[in-house]
């Protein structure tokens, strides 16, 4: 993490509502959360430049709506929600722009092999293809659980889905990925 000061979430939340300290506090929030949020967005939209734009939008939205954040939920939950909403909105806009069906998100990984910011080998490229064919919710759950190792309880707060349903989604996602690899071997 790039934060220089010791990050204390309770203190930060208090400072976010203090007009004289909020800017400094939000700078710490950016330093603390830019990396996990970046990876969350990147795994959804794949492209680095799009991710960079969406990450900026996420923090900008959080900053302009900081008065609405009362500290009832965790700051990370609130930021993840904004980031995921931004990503889904972006993907839907891209679908409309590319004139593809709602369930087809293959356009996201069409140029992955030629992407400067992807250095994965063939098997990693295939994993991305396998993840990409999952329904949106299963893809989100898989990425959060497998790559971020996020707890189901935290995912439940972010996605507004029960822990049981999330476990089932993850299980289905695993099965589909296994099937993808076995059918493409």
């Amino acid at each position, binding site marked *: 993490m790039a934060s220089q000061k010791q990050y204390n979430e309770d203190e930060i939340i208090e400072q976010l509502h203090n*007009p004289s300290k909020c800017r400094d506090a939000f700078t710490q929030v950016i330093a603390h959360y830019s990396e996990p949020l970046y990876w969350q967005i990147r795994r959804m939209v794949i492209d*680095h430049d799009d991710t*960079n734009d969406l990450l*900026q939008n996420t923090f900008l939205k959080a900053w302009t709506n900081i008065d609405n954040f009362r500290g009832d939920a965790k700051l990370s939950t609130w930021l993840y929600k904004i980031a995921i909403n931004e990503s889904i909105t972006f993907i839907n806009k891209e679908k409309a722009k590319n004139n593809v069906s709602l369930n087809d998100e293959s356009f996201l990984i069409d140029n992955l092999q030629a992407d400067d910011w992807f250095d994965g080998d063939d098997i990693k490229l295939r994993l991305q293809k396998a993840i990409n064919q999952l329904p949106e919710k299963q893809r989100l759950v898989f990425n959060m659980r497998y790559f971020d190792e996020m707890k189901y309880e935290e995912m439940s707060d972010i996605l507004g889905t029960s822990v049981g349903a999330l476990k089932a989604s993850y299980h289905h996602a695993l099965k589909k990925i296994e099937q993808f690899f076995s059918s493409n071997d």
Partner: protein
Amino acid sequence: MKEKSDILLKIGKDAGFKVPENYFSDFAEKMASSLPEQEIKPLPEPTLWHKVRPFVYMAAMFAGVWCMMQMFNGIGTKEKGIYNPDIVAGFQNEANVDDFMLHGDVSEYDILTYEDSVAADDLGSIADTSAH
């Protein structure tokens, strides 16, 4: 439930994505400097109601539990059998109890025989009346 498939164990956690050098530190710096100026409203001071609200809710909850206990207690007492003494005395008085209940062992045959004898008596009395 299996958390990882064999293929995922083989691939590992690295998705193959990378970022430009110093991307995150540069991003945080640039993002912080590009935040627009805005007026942040301090959180309003909590009112007296906000302060006492949890205690009021707790008191209401205990009152509810107490009321429920009273209600169930009342039902339980009735079940245990506190009877109206007038009704009990009424039942104890044999004069108030129907004959049928006292002679419950009278069979249907007895009743039919009784009805037949009454009918025969009636016919006899009618015959006597007509003879006069």
